[in-house]
């Protein structure tokens, strides 16, 4: 389906009531509040940009002490404007913005953009000012963008709004761009202008005192003029809502791709987390997890962002990942093939009828495999014939056209030929006219026709790989995580009765047992005799582990004795352990010694959970030992995940194949591990007080033997007990 047809079909949708944010992007009238008469200042330039952009509605400058700005009569106060105003753009200095906003509220203006800096970003005085803006917005029901933002642009020919201090109006198009950085916006606009990339909406949202990126995403979801949404983010707040909204956008009948750059890596918290989960769950890993669950494709640069966006916006989605390459140069064809395979694309062998058709129209020396090499002296007719043939091949989902400018290469004619073929094509086409100067005229033709062009075929393949991520997400079945039957009430009683800090091991194991994790029989013993009696009951060999609220890392104080084969060994180990721990940690209150059966060897896996301030409850999985210590081969997800989500998590670690059985080793109880992981996630999600949780290790035996919790730590926060409704149980 061509771009024109796609645009037409979206315009035929039935009318719906305007979204609350519609007047931010398509106002009928604007008051620019705080304009000055001095060119080159932000207040003046914003006003003059609105005029120069050809805004279709009315504009009222509010400029105390001035009769007119740019020939437009000015008012002293926004309250002096007699006509209704849809949108206020406030450009006063920060310390009087609240006065302006308050007057806007009294006038009944429901949308405002505060361009001014000097708020949260400058410290406590600015935070106080920003809080005042939040209060005023809430009081008057104003949808507020900013403060500290570049502004908003709507290139729709029916609106033509440039309420920003970016130069010029961008091309109109179907891509929406939302940015937390105003400065980046100007660079993006300049970049996009050169490549004739058009926007549906363009917004710098600044400090998000009112409207957030998630609010804007919700708006763009229903915006008929937007096909693709791009995000530049520096901080994430209310992540769960962002994930929910983004997921609705990226799945379903009217889904739209969302691609994002998330920049900046926050430092680790001041408190070094004692758990693996706490130390490994840096924000960037959690961003990956959140985006993965939202269907947001994460990219690393503006180049990648737009490389993928133009494919999504200007071309139909491919049916699959099979790529055919048409090239007039063998070397670049080989490089492109390598890049395609590395990017996860398939390079199918063309069907015999296609090859026969190619042989009939190409020189004998031409290669009719994939890539199709039309040879260096190819003109437009050879390109057209080859392109038409591969597009009709049922084994091809998308085509990359490569051109290198030989002396006889008519770059413009070939570009036009590609455009003409594209008009009739139902499959996506991308081009890599390699070079800069000689190919420039042809590149212009392609860009004007909205055919994605990349200087290098590798970039095209990378963009196609991002598109495959979009498709893969849409095809992946998703359902709400199912609750597992647990004894949440028992866990609640145990947790509520415990102070903040690390739970004693025996208590931690009780909590895990309440949530259905495979905890071995164990007992907290306060004498060697008691320990020996219990060991006799459960059978040797046994393990002794000292239990003290002050001792987290037992091995470091020789608080663990393994593989005790009989009562004599147990009693000796018991006495030596207590003496040794007392000497090394005289401050520690010893509650006793936990006795359990020695667990047969198996794969060691780590199941971790923590409660993150921004991301909420998160879950971690990895294989233990060197896989986590050295390779950090772990994966994260937002909890809860359910069994299906848990299994998906497990499959993401590189060492997962070990659990499936490698080189004749028996497979572990993978489904059982997934069940345990899901239960850990449910526990962390159910109880706000669980700040960190490590099951490390869960010993994963063969499928016939099952899994056993060998060690666990739970750290509780000092806050009040679990949230209402959390302990639902079966």
């Amino acid at each position, binding site marked *: 389906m061509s771009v024109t047809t796609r645009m037409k079909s979206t315009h035929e949708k039935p009318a719906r009531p305007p979204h609350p944010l519609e007047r931010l992007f398509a106002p009928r009238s604007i008051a620019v509040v705080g304009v000055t008469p001095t060119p080159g200042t932000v207040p003046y330039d914003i006003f003059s940009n609105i005029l120069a952009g050809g805004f279709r509605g009315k504009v009222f400058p509010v400029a105390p002490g001035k009769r007119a700005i740019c020939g437009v009569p000015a008012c002293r106060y926004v309250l002096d404007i007699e006509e209704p105003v849809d949108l206020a753009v406030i450009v006063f200095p920060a310390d009087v913005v609240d006065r*302006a906003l308050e007057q806007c509220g009294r006038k009944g203006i429901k949308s405002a953009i505060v361009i001014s800096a000097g708020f949260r970003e400058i410290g406590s005085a600015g935070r106080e000012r920003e809080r005042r803006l939040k209060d005023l917005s809430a009081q008057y029901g104003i949808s507020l963008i900013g403060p500290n933002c570049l502004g908003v642009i709507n290139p729709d020919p029916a609106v033509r709004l440039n309420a920003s201090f970016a130069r010029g109006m961008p091309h109109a198009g179907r891509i929406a761009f939302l940015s937390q950085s105003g400065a980046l916006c100007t660079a993006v606009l300049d970049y996009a202008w050169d490549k004739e990339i058009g926007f549906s909406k363009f917004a710098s949202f600044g400090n998000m005192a009112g409207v957030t990126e998630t609010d804007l995403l919700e708006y763009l979801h229903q915006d008929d003029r937007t096909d693709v949404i791009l995000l530049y983010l520096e901080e994430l707040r209310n992540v769960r809502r962002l994930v929910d909204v983004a997921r609705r956008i990226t799945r379903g009948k009217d889904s739209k791709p969302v691609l994002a750059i998330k920049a900046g890596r926050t430092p680790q918290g001041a408190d070094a987390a004692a758990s693996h989960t706490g130390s490994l769950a840096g924000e960037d890993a959690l961003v990956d997890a959140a985006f993965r669950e939202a269907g947001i494709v994460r990219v690393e640069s503006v180049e990648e962002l737009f490389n993928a966006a133009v494919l999504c916006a200007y071309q139909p989605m491919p049916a699959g990942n099979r790529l055919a390459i048409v090239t007039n140069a063998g070397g670049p064809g080989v490089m492109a093939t390598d890049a395609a395979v590395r990017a996860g694309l398939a390079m199918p062998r063309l069907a015999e009828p296609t090859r026969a058709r190619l042989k009939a129209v190409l020189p004998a020396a031409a290669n009719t495999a994939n890539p199709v090499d039309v040879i260096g002296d190819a003109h437009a007719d050879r390109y057209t014939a080859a392109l038409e043939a591969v597009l009709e091949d049922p084994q091809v989902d998308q085509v990359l056209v490569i051109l290198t400018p030989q002396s006889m290469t008519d770059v413009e004619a070939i570009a036009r030929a590609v455009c003409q073929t594209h008009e009739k094509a139902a499959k996506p086409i991308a081009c890599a006219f390699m070079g800069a100067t000689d190919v420039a005229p042809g590149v212009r033709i392609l860009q004007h026709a909205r055919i994605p062009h990349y200087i290098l075929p590798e970039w095209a393949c990378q963009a196609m790989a991002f598109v495959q991520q979009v498709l893969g997400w849409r095809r992946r079945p998703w359902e709400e995580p199912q609750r597992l039957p647990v004894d949440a009430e028992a866990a609640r009683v145990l947790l509520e009765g415990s102070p903040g800090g690390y739970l004693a091991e025996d208590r931690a194991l009780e909590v895990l047992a309440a949530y259905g994790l495979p905890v071995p029989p164990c007992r907290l013993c306060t004498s060697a005799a008691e320990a020996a009696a219990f060991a006799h009951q459960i059978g040797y060999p046994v393990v002794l582990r000292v239990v003290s609220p002050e001792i987290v890392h037992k091995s470091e104080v020789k608080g663990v004795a393994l593989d005790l084969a009989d009562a004599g060994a147990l009693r000796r180990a018991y006495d030596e352990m207590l003496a040794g721990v007392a000497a090394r940690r005289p401050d520690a209150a010893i509650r006793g010694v936990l006795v359990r059966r020695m667990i047969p060897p198996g794969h060691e896996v780590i199941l971790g959970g923590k409660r993150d301030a921004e991301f909420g409850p998160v879950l971690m999985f990895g294989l233990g030992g060197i896989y986590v210590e050295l390779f950090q081969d772990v994966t994260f997800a937002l909890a809860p995940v359910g069994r299906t989500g848990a299994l998906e998590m497990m499959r993401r670690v590189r060492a997962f194949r070990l659990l499936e059985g490698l080189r004749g080793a028996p497979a572990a109880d993978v489904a059982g591990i997934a069940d345990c992981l899901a239960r850990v996630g449910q526990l962390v999600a159910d109880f706000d007080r669980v700040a960190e949780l490590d099951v490390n290790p869960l010993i994963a035996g063969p499928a016939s033997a099952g899994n056993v919790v060998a060690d666990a730590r739970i750290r509780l926060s000092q806050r009040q007990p679990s949230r209402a409704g959390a302990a639902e149980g079966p």
Partner: protein
Amino acid sequence: MDKDEIRRRVVKVVCRVLNVTEDMVQPQSHFVFDLGAESTQSIELLAAFEGEFDIEMDEDAALGVQTVDDAVEFISRYVR
């Protein structure tokens, strides 16, 4: 010099620097919000007050002078 005289002369300076008429200038008038002072004019105002009253105003303290009344109060502490 009494405050009335200070106020009269402050208003004169404000009208001259900000190019506004006296009827626009009230005691509570904010130089930026009510009288349209740009950032350079705010600095000009302070310099003009110094010149008018032959005083030297502490820069940091002068940042708090945002209205006509602020200016009158501030200047009256310098002028005896």
